[in-house]
């Protein structure tokens, strides 16, 4: 399977995503420069983390208008998988691939830490390698991760099973401090209605090798591999 990893000016997790795909998953990956108009036959598109365009105007707002986003949106409309991580989630929202928006963390602080997530939907093509309700640990590193949408949208996301990951307390955390950014309804990751676009603030691509801590992100890539290859 071929992964296309988009590099925007200011992306800084494109190499992490490349390593996750090539070294941990053993699949092919290509970098796609944001000014190109060719996905180079990628089966899966990754919008990586970083600070595209310096977060000018709003995080992801300008990258969403990059030339290659035309092709990414078409790929998504054809049902092709798109994985937006961190800044990639922000870009996917700004490109209207996903509902809602990511706002400044409620604490006003950049938060870089491993956090606990609960897998809310293990039937998406990104999450079949997990169990529903499973608690996993992934790193986060963001200043603008507070997912926000109107109540109607939030109800629909929950009703349709589009909330895929939620921040959750583990045994060591106090009840009130597990949500790192004030995200509405503790949402950490969502899919679109068709289930082929996943946006998430935590970084699965940084948690794929035991050497770097719990490799809880690897199952996400393995899920994609099984589902798309099948």
């Amino acid at each position, binding site marked *: 399977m071929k992964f296309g990893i988009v590099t925007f000016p200011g992306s800084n997790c494109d190499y992490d995503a490349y390593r996750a795909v090539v070294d941990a998953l053993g699949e092919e990956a290509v970098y796609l420069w944001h000014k190109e108009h060719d996905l180079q036959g990628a089966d899966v598109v990754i919008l990586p983390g970083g600070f595209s365009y310096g977060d000018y105007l709003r995080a992801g*707002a300008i990258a969403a208008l990059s030339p290659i986003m035309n092709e990414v949106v078409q790929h998504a409309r054809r049902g092709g998988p798109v994985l937006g991580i961190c800044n990639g989630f922000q870009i996917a929202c700004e490109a209207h691939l996903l509902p809602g928006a990511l*706002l400044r963390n409620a604490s*006003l602080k950049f938060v870089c830490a491993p956090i606990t997530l609960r897998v809310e939907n293990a039937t998406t093509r990104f999450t079949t390698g997990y169990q529903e309700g499973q608690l996993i640990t992934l790193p986060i590193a963001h200043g603008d991760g507070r997912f926000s949408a109107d109540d109607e949208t939030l109800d629909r996301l929950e009703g349709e099973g589009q909330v895929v990951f939620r921040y959750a307390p583990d045994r060591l955390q106090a009840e009130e401090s597990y949500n790192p950014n004030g995200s509405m309804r503790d949402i950490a990751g969502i899919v679109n209605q068709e289930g082929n676009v996943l946006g998430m603030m935590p970084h699965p691509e940084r948690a794929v090798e035991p050497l770097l801590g719990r490799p809880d992100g690897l199952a996400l890539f393995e899920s994609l591999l099984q589902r798309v290859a099948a």
Partner: protein
Amino acid sequence: MSRFRVAVHVVPRRGLLDPQGKAVADALHTLGFRDVAAVHVGRHLVLELDARDAAGARAAAREMCERLLANPVTEDFSIAEVSAE
């Protein structure tokens, strides 16, 4: 066509948590401005653009706000001022 300056205000939607506004309000309280009930921190943009008339400049700025300058999910905008250069 003539050149116009259009000032645009973009602010967080009322009712949404605005931690930056709250931090500024807290700082103002610290300085003794106890009458400040709330602060909303947004963006002020000045567009210099060519249009047939002021109404045209305003309409163009409105479309820019709807499509890029403001996020319709979380922000409200207003055209604060249109002036000929």
